[in-house]
């Protein structure tokens, strides 16, 4: 059925709704400077020290700026810092850009940077900074020395995740909970809970146009071409897709996998995708029999039908995972390494699985079938892959598996509680990592990160892995780090505390006639980066082409 393009405008005009035509009729259409995008949940906080949800982080990503930013390929670019100079193993001198002002008009100085770091103390995101921060000495208004508590390899990448806020926010003279105040290209405008969150172009953004520092682009405009960004809060994914197809929004963030094929077929819509930094996995409760046995774990892992999962659940999007570090980080992993791990320990192989399970059950003196569950939250894709794994396990004589679903926060509570590794249930989980390899290993496999401290739900503990991860974290040499991470990954894969399932893909879909120049950022919460990131040579316009 061909879409009737003018009737909505007519209808709205008929009811005298002149004000709504700009937004509801053709988002971003009339003055060419509004972008309407979506958020799948409401923004819960504007304060970076409180934000544990990706939605909040993506909502204030364009408002705050960090000292440096990480581009689409993982390279570091200066933003508020013009220079990071390593003085010794634990000291870095930061030179700040001059003439930068916050949206409240105050100057951005070294005191703001120091205060921004220190206000993390005692907050939910304390570890963002205090994992490495020891002290900062202010040299002058635009220079400071940051002292680290230990040599810390991901220092520069980590700085990219620490937004700089006015010093007044640390002294409670400024309340960030009523509205974010940063130095970014966009300033906060309004937030109507469950309805919309709106940013407007900031007047005094420091970028003067031309070439982005360190980037190839030489034509980045001095101010963002898009004047207003409206994020519509649409919880229901199907409604999000409908809103995009109906022209109510310009850009849908992370549409559901089963809608992507349809969106690709739609001429009016462009689907942009990029390998993402994250994976799906099946976590084994190591303290519970039969999962205490390595052969059983590898046996189950060998029964995860990764290719079939990607084809039937994810519509062919994504790739099988055989080790934790995302192929996105090509300095630290490789195709050949992943293939080797697959062949040796993980790849789907029912025959090998039967041998392993036979040996494992015999060693534990357990007579099959063993009755157990896979627990998961209600994410449709995740439930479906868990069901495929269940079917594979039940097709053997060894298991009688059922699926148990929980609502997300209940599930998180259950999985991250201190004794989830003692239950007999396998846990279907997703993990989002960052630009540094440490983010894919430490939270999940370092012994001190065992739940409830963090996210090592298997309660995997290996002195060797702990040592390798610590060495890698405090080594600045990339080749040496790669070597440590390869050893650590090999050890983890061999001992199989989890079965890796799939590396994900970040997907953005937008209306071709309304959006131009948009690029997908591979990491969660950075999705809207390319709207205006002059130091990376990225900017987006409305109007399309």
């Amino acid at each position, binding site marked *: *059925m061909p*879409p*009737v*393009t003018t*009737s*909505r405008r007519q*209808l*709205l005009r008929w*009811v*005298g*709704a002149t*004000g*709504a035509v700009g*937004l*509801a009729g053709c988002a971003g259409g009339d003055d060419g400077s509004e972008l309407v995008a979506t958020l799948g949940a*409401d923004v*819960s*906080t504007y304060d970076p020290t409180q934000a*544990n949800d990706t939605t909040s982080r993506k909502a204030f990503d364009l408002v705050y700026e960090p000292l440096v930013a990480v581009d689409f390929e993982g390279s570091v670019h200066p933003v508020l810092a013009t220079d990071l100079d390593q003085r010794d193993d634990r000291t870095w001198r930061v030179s700040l850009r001059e003439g930068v002002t916050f949206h409240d008009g105050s100057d951005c100085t070294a005191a703001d940077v120091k205060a921004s770091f220190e206000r993390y103390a*005692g907050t*939910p995101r304390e*570890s963002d900074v205090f994992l490495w921060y020891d002290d900062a000495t202010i040299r002058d208004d635009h220079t400071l020395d940051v002292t680290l508590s230990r040599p810390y390899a991901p220092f520069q990448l980590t700085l990219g995740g620490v937004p700089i806020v006015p010093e007044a926010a640390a002294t409670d003279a400024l309340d960030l*909970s*009523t509205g974010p105040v940063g130095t970014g290209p966009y300033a906060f405008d309004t937030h*109507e*809970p*469950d*309805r*919309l969150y709106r940013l407007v172009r900031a007047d005094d953004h420091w970028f003067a146009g031309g070439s982005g520092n360190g980037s190839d682009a030489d034509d980045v405009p001095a101010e963002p071409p898009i004047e207003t960004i*409206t994020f*519509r*809060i*649409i*919880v*229901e994914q*199907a*409604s999000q897709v*409908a*809103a995009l*197809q*109906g*022209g*109510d*929004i310009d850009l849908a963030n992370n549409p559901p996998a089963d809608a992507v094929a349809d969106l690709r077929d739609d001429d009016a819509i462009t689907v942009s995708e990029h390998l993402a930094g994250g994976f799906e996995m099946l976590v084994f409760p190591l303290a519970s029999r039969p999962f205490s046995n390595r052969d059983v774990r590898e046996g189950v892992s060998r029964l995860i039908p990764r290719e079939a999962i990607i084809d039937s659940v994810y519509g062919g999007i994504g790739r099988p995972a055989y080790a934790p570090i995302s192929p996105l980080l090509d300095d630290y992993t490789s195709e050949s390494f992943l293939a080797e791990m697959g062949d040796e320990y993980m790849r789907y192989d029912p025959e090998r699985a039967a041998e392993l399970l036979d040996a494992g059950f015999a060693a534990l003196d357990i007579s099959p079938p063993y009755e157990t569950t896979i627990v998961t939250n209600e994410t449709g894709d995740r439930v479906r892959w868990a069901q495929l794994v269940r079917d594979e396990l039940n097709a053997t004589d060894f298991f009688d598996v059922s699926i148990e679903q929980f*609502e*997300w*926060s*209940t599930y*998180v*509570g*259950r999985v*991250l509680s201190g004794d989830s590794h003692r239950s007999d249930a396998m846990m279907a989980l997703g993990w989002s990592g960052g630009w540094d390899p440490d983010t894919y290993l430490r939270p999940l496999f370092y012994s001190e990160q065992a739940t*409830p*401290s*963090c996210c090592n739900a298997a309660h995997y503990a290996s002195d060797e892995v702990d040592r390798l991860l610590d060495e890698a974290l405090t080594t600045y040499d990339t080749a040496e780090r790669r070597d440590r991470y390869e050893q650590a990954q090999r050890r983890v894969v061999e001992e199989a505390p989890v079965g890796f399932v799939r590396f994900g893909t970040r997907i953005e879909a937008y209306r071709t006639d309304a959006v131009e120049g948009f690029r997908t950022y591979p990491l969660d919460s950075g999705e809207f980066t390319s709207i205006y990131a002059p130091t990376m040579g990225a900017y987006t316009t409305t109007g399309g082409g």
Partner: protein
Amino acid sequence: MSLRRYVLRRTLLTLPILVGVSALTFALVKLLPGTPVDYVLQFQEATPELRASLRAQYHLDEPVWKQYLLWLNDVLHLDFGERIASDRSVSAAIAERLPETLVLGGISFLIALFVGVPAGVVAAVRRGSLLDEGSRVVALLGIATPNFWLGLLLILLFGVHLNLVPVIPPVAPVFAPESLVFLVLPAVTLGTASAALFTRLTRSAVTEQLRQEYVRAARARGLDERTVIRKHVLRNSLISVVTVAAVQVAFLLDGAVVVERVFSWPGLGRLLVRAILQRDFPVVQAIVLLVATAVVVANLLADVLYAWLDPRITY
């Protein structure tokens, strides 16, 4: 007993019900896994001091009965406390969403009533005809169709393919014309099941009345059929419809949770779901109490209306 005394007595009787509901809600919310402190900390590690201070802030260090009394005392002063998920007060958050849900529910209710009752009357008067059978099938479908599915179907048809209405709410006040236009689809979605129920109920009530002696007598007196139906049958049939209409108020509030999600309508239903997921106890308690109060008051009104409609009822 006079009507006034009856109303007074019924009103007083609702108080223990409300207290019971509030206590039950309070207890059930406590049974939810996870505490607000966990939510605030996102299940991350925290010093015992920080945990203790957060617990004290939300009175979680008091025994449950004392927490309940503290809360009840505040509620009696119309203070629903502070939200856990933000710094705002619960009352402000609810006041902001209430008009949205009331307008959606109100339009749905009107649709249900003005479609359902006439359809039921026609079906009863033409009992056994194709029209009657047709209304039966439509009503059955209406009752059986999940809101969620119907909503998406309407969005795809009218929002995407025909492109007649926006899929997401316009940025405008709730009473603005474009908002009311937008609300047609959600209201139809929400009102369908109620309309179907009204149809079936009116049909059986009218059928029942049509068999009564007084109808035969009226017809024998030479009154035309239209007058018989309107003046006599309808009034008597409405008694049972009114009772069910009150229960439908609860039904609509319940359905709003799903419909508001599908249509991205920022009403109480959305607020409630999010509050539950966030373990934002004060919001959950306040909304449940509000809904309970609405249902109890609706039932009270139904009883009073019932008495007023049928003077034979003694009290």
